[in-house]
Structure formats: structure tokens, C-alpha cells
């Protein structure tokens, strides 16, 4: 579904991502792990169109998407969350979700200006879907609360709800469990599984190994911008290069 071929990203002298090839299978839950600074978030930023790769190609469902503007990539079916939550802080939870639906709304300028019947119908349906999504991520009670005023864990869930509103085929989750307590992490794992049940492919970056091992079908390990391993959770767990990257290794 998502295929990276030889993707490299340089920032001046720094090579943040180096010749990375990656294949995310449709319907899977995949994870990218690696020490801090390994280039994981850079990969997300390249896929979602914030950065253009310095070299390499990115394919999403057979369309080559590197170089597309961000909003077009989003509309094509790739949604994401952010490592440091980026909600629309002073908009109600439901309006955050509604903003996520934007790419699927058809109201033109005139519809917005005149509130045509078509606009009214569309808004009503969109609001209905937004409520359903809030229920799905467990936030039905706080639809009118400003995102900013929600507890941390709820903000993470709202960000996922907002991303789902854009009806993605592929959802990128950037450290979704960061700052969560064990109970919240458990709920998150269930939520990720439920998202897959909806037919959405999930690619996540996560430091919490318990969560990664529990939910992932496929894990890719990055270190210094390079892929050092990939495979099933059990294979990754016992891979000496991975252990070395995380724990350090004696200089030969």
C-alpha cells in the first residue's frame, strides 16, 4: 500500500534518512522503532509531504506521491497525528473532527456564503459522522469542549479521531502512547486494533516496546537514518543489531 524506495533526506551535511526502502502491506499494523534521532519522524514528514525527499521515490497505492502538496496527500488517503500534539486548540472537539472532514466536503464558496440547502444537508451529515467518530475514540461527552481543555490522553485520542475524519486508508501515528499511563496505553492498543478492523492500515512510531510488540505485525528498526532490521516482533526482539543499537555495543 505504501512503498518507499531508496528514500534519502539530507539536511545540509546531516543525512537524516539514508536510502530507506520500506513496504507497508494493506491492512497491516506496522511500526517504526529506533533510538532518538534515528530519523523516524523525518520519515513521517516525508511521507506526509512536509519534506521532499532528497532522493528516492514514494508510492501510495501505485501513485507516486513524493513532491505532492501536503493537502493532496491527505486527500489521497494518508492521515497522521503528531508527536507533540497539534490539535486546533481553541476549537471544540467536534469542530476539530469536522475540520478533518474538510477534504470530503463539497461546499463551494457560494454554499458557504449563502448557506444553500446543499450546504445545510452536508453540514448536518458531517456533524453526524463527527459525533460517531467522537464516540469511536471515546470522547462523545466532550464534543463541545475546547481541545486545549481536554486531558492529555483525550487530546491524543481526539487527534486520532480528527485524523480518521479525513477517511484515511493509511494512518500514521507518531508516538501515540507518549505520556500515557499503563491503563491509557492498554486502551490505545485496543483503539489501534479497532482502527484496523475498520480496514485502515496503521503505521506507527513508538518507543513503548510493550505496545509495539503487542500490536504490530511488522516492525522496522531505524538507526542513524538507516534500516538495520525488519521483521515480526519476535524476530526483532532477538536481533543482535537491534539490541546493540538500543543498548550500545562495545567498540571492537
Amino acid at each position: 500500500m505504501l512503498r518507499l524506495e531508496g528514500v534519502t533526506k539530507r539536511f545540509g551535511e546531516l543525512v537524516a534518512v539514508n536510502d530507506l526502502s520500506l513496504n507497508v502491506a494493506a491492512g497491516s499494523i506496522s511500526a517504526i522503532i529506533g533510538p532518538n534521532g534515528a530519523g523516524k519522524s523525518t520519515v513521517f514528514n516525508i511521507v506526509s509531504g512536509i519534506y521532499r525527499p532528497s532522493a528516492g521515490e514514494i508510492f501510495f497505492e501505485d501513485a507516486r506521491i513524493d513532491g505532492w502538496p501536503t493537502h493532496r496527500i491527505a486527500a489521497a488517503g494518508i492521515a497522521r497525528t503528531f508527536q507533540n500534539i497539534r490539535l486546533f486548540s481553541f476549537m471544540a472537539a467536534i469542530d476539530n473532527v469536522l475540520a478533518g472532514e474538510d477534504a470530503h466536503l463539497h461546499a463551494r464558496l457560494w454554499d458557504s456564503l449563502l448557506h444553500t440547502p446543499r450546504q445545510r444537508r452536508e453540514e448536518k451529515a458531517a456533524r453526524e459522522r463527527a459525533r460517531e467518530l467522537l464516540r469511536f475514540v471515546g470522547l462523545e461527552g466532550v464534543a463541545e469542549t475546547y481541545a486545549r481543555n481536554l486531558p492529555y490522553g483525550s487530546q491524543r485520542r481526539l487527534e486520532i479521531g480528527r485524523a480518521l475524519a479525513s477517511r484515511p486508508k493509511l494512518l500514521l501515528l507518531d508516538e501515540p502512547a507518549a505520556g500515557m499511563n499503563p491503563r491509557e496505553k492498554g486502551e490505545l492498543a485496543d483503539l489501534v486494533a479497532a482502527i484496523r478492523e475498520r480496514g485502515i492500515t496503521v503505521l506507527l512510531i513508538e518507543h513503548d516496546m510493550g505496545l509495539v510488540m503487542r500490536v504490530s505485525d511488522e516492525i522496522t528498526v531505524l538507526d542513524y537514518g538507516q534500516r538495520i532490521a525488519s521483521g515480526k516482533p519476535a524476530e526483532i526482539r532477538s536481533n543482535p543489531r537491534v539490541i546493540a543499537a538500543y543498548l550500545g555495543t562495545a567498540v571492537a
Partner: protein
Amino acid sequence: MIYLYFLVAIAVVIAAQRLNDLRAKRVLFLLLGAALLCAPLFDRNDATFNVLADAGIFVLLALGLNIVVGFAGLLDLGYAAFFAIGAYAYAMMASPQFNLHLPFWLLLFLAAAFAAIFGIILGAPTLRLRGDYLAIVTLGFGEIVPQIFQNLTKYTGGPNGIGALDFPSFFGRSFGQSTIPYYYVVLALIALALFFAYNLRDSRLGRAWMAIREDELAARHMGINTTAVKLAAFALGASFSGLAGVVFAAKLSLVSPDLFQFQVSVLIVSMLVLGGMGNIPGVIVGALVLVLVNNVVLPQANTIAASAGLHVDFGNYHFFIYGAILVGIMLFRPEGLLPSRQRKEELHHAAA
């Protein structure tokens, strides 16, 4: 007497803001509109309606700028440029200048369209800019436009501007020297502007503006085409200003570059800050208060001072007075007199 109009209008708008019930709000606005419509039947003082029409023109400008700055969060310091474009459009196409005498009503639409096009022309190069950088570029645009009108002497009459503009007419009856017809036109345009502004706020486009104001990058990731959405804000905001410019020019029957200097842009931004950026009733109150100070209180203060044997021209101090008002607002009520819930919380969080 003139104070009564302003105070009633301000009081009604504030009351409307306090009401939660949408229908009650609408009724209140309609009552105010009806009262204002009937006012000339009882009060035939032309000077009063001249001031009120001016106040209305600034309400229009404030509502337009509010779309750009308040809704979409794009700080535009050159908004008077679009006002000038609207006014000059009327002046050039309804005067002896080119011997063109297009009807006022047609020019209202044309000027709104012109202003919108220039809104896009200004908007396009600023799309990547934010905050202070955007403000500087728009400020430049606001300086360039009156300069162009000043220097294209052949077409625009240069520093003297264009005079003897046509009186508009309504079904064959000329507006003549009376200011009351302009007052009615302004009321109608405000009603239209309010209808559009409220609709926009509660629409897909309004939500997209809010989203880019809150976090542009995240908005783009939601599939929002930020380019199109920002250009729509510039174009729509400018079109309100173009309408205001046409009425302003026709009423004065004269345009000249010095009517559209930087201070006009500053005045309109001040109205937004004073009233409560992003909140429609707020910016109306802001516009009314500053016009009241500028066009009523200061001239009267002059008369009073003169009768006391003092020779002070308070008009010369109007910047000092705005300055004092703005500093006071920033210190004691940074969200403005009549803020939106959003802005209030935003500033509370910022302070905390």
C-alpha cells in the same frame, strides 16, 4: 441626539452578544434595523445621517477586515488599499474624468469584484508568510496603492484626485445632496455583510479559516487547501472594502490619495482590536466607538474648548487618543470590549 443613535446601537449589539438564543439575537438585530430604517422619518437632520453613514462605512470595513484578520488570522495592515480601489473604481467610471457614467449599483458590484481580484493579487505572494512578515508585506501594499493613484496623474488626477463624481440615482431619482439615501444604502450593505459574515463563520470555509489560524501545518494535513482558503479570505475581505469605497466616494463626490493613507488601515485594525477580533458584534462595537470618538466627540470637544476661550484642535490629538485607548485595552482587557469565547480563553491561557 447623535449620541443617542450610537449608544442605542452599541447597547443593542452588546445585548445581542449576551443572548444565547439565536432566534432572540436575530429579533434584536431586526428591531435595531427597523428602528434605524425609520429614523429618517422622525429626524431630518442631514448632518446626523452623514455621520451615521460614515459610521456604517467603517462598520462595513471592520466586518471585511475581520474576515481576514479575525477569522483567518492573517494580519493585514494595508486594508485601506482595497477601500481606495473601490473608491477610485467609482471615481473613474462615474465622473467626467473619462466621461464614463456607469450606474452606481453596477459599480457596487464591479468594485467589489475588482477589490476581490486585488485581494487575490496581494494574497498570492504572501501565502508563505505569517505573522510579522505578512504584516510588513501588506503594509507595503497599503502604501503602494495610494502612491500609484497619486502618481498616475493622467488617469487619477494625481494628488488632487477626481472630483464632481456622479450622484447615484435610484429608479431615476437622483440622491442629490441629501445624505439620507447613502445612509440607507449603507444600512442595506451592512445587512448583506452581516448575512455573509455569519454564514461564512458557520461554514466549511469558516472552519477551515479557524483551523489555519490555529495551526496551519495541521490544517494542511487534514486535507485543507490552505492556498485556496487564504485567498478566499483575502478576496472576500477585500470585496467588503470595495463596496464601502464606492459608497464613500459617491457620498463625498470626491476621491484623493490622502483619504486612503496608512492611518486608515490602522484605524480599522484598531476597531478590531478594541471591539474584539474575530467576533462580529465586537468589531461592530469597535467601529462605532472609534467613529463616535473621531467624528463626534473630538469636533465637539473643539467647540467646547473654543467657547471656553481655548484654542486647541483635538482632531490633532486623535492618534494620541486612540493610542491611549488601545494601551488601556491591551492592559486591562486584551481580548477587546466584546470578545468571542475563543479569543477570551486564548488570552487567558497566554497570560497563565
